[in-house]
């Protein structure tokens, strides 16, 4: 028997008792990691009145009533706000990172390695640590659209998320692997720096850009502390804030709260399932080279 895996386990041709044990273990693992999601969906779609803490394994009186209730209790606005934040924030984050990575990966200039080091150092500088002074900074920056400061505005929810070290790291690494000849050829054809960046480098970086987009999406979608500090009226509440604010309102049933949580988790699950291969690639480059 050829040993393919660490334990020599092989799904199709292993000996029968071993195989049974392995399948049973897989089922158990799946139950632990998927059953919670299953009960979430089933309870959210149940119309029967249930006690707090009671969950359903199969929908009791299946209905979308909880979802529509949640929708009317702020989830609609929260979803809209979160989508705006993620759309604008992700576009800015990826563009700014790509521009910086182009400079760091393909230009030689004094201070390049220092800049890279300083930017990457922020990876180890958690947002939670700078949250309070960041709030004070946002309170000092005026924003022109409605007057006032960045507090309680889309700008305050979006702009602090634009500078992120991970996409710069991923894109710099990727751009270094692009052969110089391609850039030289474009330069001979009369392309300027920005033209080369836009027409040569960016198209070649598509897989790395997809990786950054998945990570950026999940990072922005997951934000909680920043909106908690910045959003002060229901008009700027993101979906994460709406979900936790439903928790504290006593008149809403648990089914409605779980429906809101369901709406919060569906977009990230979809993004992950669609762009899974880009996600795993980034996960490994980010953690193995750490």
């Amino acid at each position, binding site marked *: 028997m050829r040993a393919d895996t660490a334990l020599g386990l092989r799904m199709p041709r292993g000996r029968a008792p071993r195989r049974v044990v392995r399948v049973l273990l897989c089922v158990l693992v799946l139950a632990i990691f*998927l059953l919670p999601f299953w009960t979430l969906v089933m309870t959210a779609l149940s119309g029967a009145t249930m006690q707090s803490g009671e969950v359903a394994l199969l929908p009791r009186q299946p209905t979308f009533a909880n979802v529509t209730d949640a929708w009317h209790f702020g989830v609609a606005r929260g979803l809209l706000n979160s989508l705006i934040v993620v759309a604008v924030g992700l576009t800015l984050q990826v563009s700014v990172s790509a521009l910086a990575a182009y400079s760091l990966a393909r230009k030689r200039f004094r201070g390049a390695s220092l800049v890279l080091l300083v930017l990457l150092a922020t990876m180890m500088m958690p947002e939670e640590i700078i949250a309070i002074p960041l709030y004070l900074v946002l309170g000092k920056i005026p924003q022109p659209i409605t007057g006032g400061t960045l507090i309680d505005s889309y700008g305050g929810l979006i702009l602090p998320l634009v500078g992120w070290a991970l996409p710069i790291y991923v894109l710099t690494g990727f751009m270094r692997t692009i052969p110089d000849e391609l850039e030289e050829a474009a330069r001979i054809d009369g392309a300027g720096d920005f033209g080369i960046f836009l027409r040569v480098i960016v198209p070649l970086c598509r897989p790395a850009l997809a990786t950054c987009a998945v990570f950026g999406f999940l990072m922005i979608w997951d934000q909680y502390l920043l909106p908690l500090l910045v959003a002060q009226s229901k008009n700027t509440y993101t979906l994460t804030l709406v979900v936790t604010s439903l928790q504290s309102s006593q008149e809403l049933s648990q089914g409605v709260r779980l429906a809101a949580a369901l709406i919060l988790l569906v977009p990230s*699950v979809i993004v992950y399932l669609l762009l899974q291969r880009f996600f795993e690639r980034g996960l490994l480059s980010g953690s193995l080279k750490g």
Partner: protein
Amino acid sequence: MATLVAAPEAAAPAPVRRTRRRRRHWRQGFVPWLFLAPALAFFGVFKFWPTVWGIWLSVFRVRPYLGNQWVGFANYRHAFKDTLLHTAVWHTVLDAFVTVAVSAFVGFFLALLLEGPSRTLRLVRTAVFLPVVTAMVAVAELWGVLLFPARYGAVNSLIGHLGLGPEPFLNSPHSALWSVMLIQIWKSAPYDMVIFVAGLAGIDRQLYEACSIDGANAWHRLRYVTLPALRPITTIVITLGIIRGLRVFTEIYVLTNGGPAGATETVTTFGYKQATTGNDTGYATAISTMLLAATVVLTALVLWWRRRREDA
């Protein structure tokens, strides 16, 4: 670049070419910074300014409208005497170490179980990975319901079949922190699994073949081939995990808000309360500054330790 500066003497029609070269030289030095400018602006305003300001504020008593009052290291002295903060530090360290160690352990066994190229296994791995990509707020909301303290709560009725419980989980000071850890492990073990699966895939198959020729059993193979090969990844997973674990905020804030009776208070939730309800921003920034210092020192230690190991 050095050649560009040294060359012009040789050129005959000097003035024109020299200015051209100088302009090109200037442009070459300028263009990289132009591309970097947006990133530097965003990092400067939203990362470095708050960091520096936070450190600055930590030596003041921050009073809105009255002007800040210089207090020197009083905030730090207060922190060293504040037993509530000490408890929060202990919770944070305990939480970081336990969740990271158990996650790595569970992730390793998941990787051993689910390693392999077959379609079914890939599908199972994808399913198991879902907690990682789910927003922490949704995870907290979901588990807050599943861990309901009554006998008919989901997890309680499950362990009731085994003759255990009912456990109060998040509702008792004795079990709240452990319950939070359980949820964190559920969310982070699959992440470690993916990294270990990649590590396992990178092990030279010939080593396994050699093992089977030598007549080694599965345990020997695991002990003498797999574990040594995974050691570098394991140290990275664990050290980075602990450093990241020190900043735990969202799950605590949503699940227990530090309670019951302060049993799950961590450094970040404690600092957040000092700044908001406690109205003591100076103290909060002193706590953040110390957490930042701890993070920097730990990271530097890890980097130094890894470099020393690589040299050896």
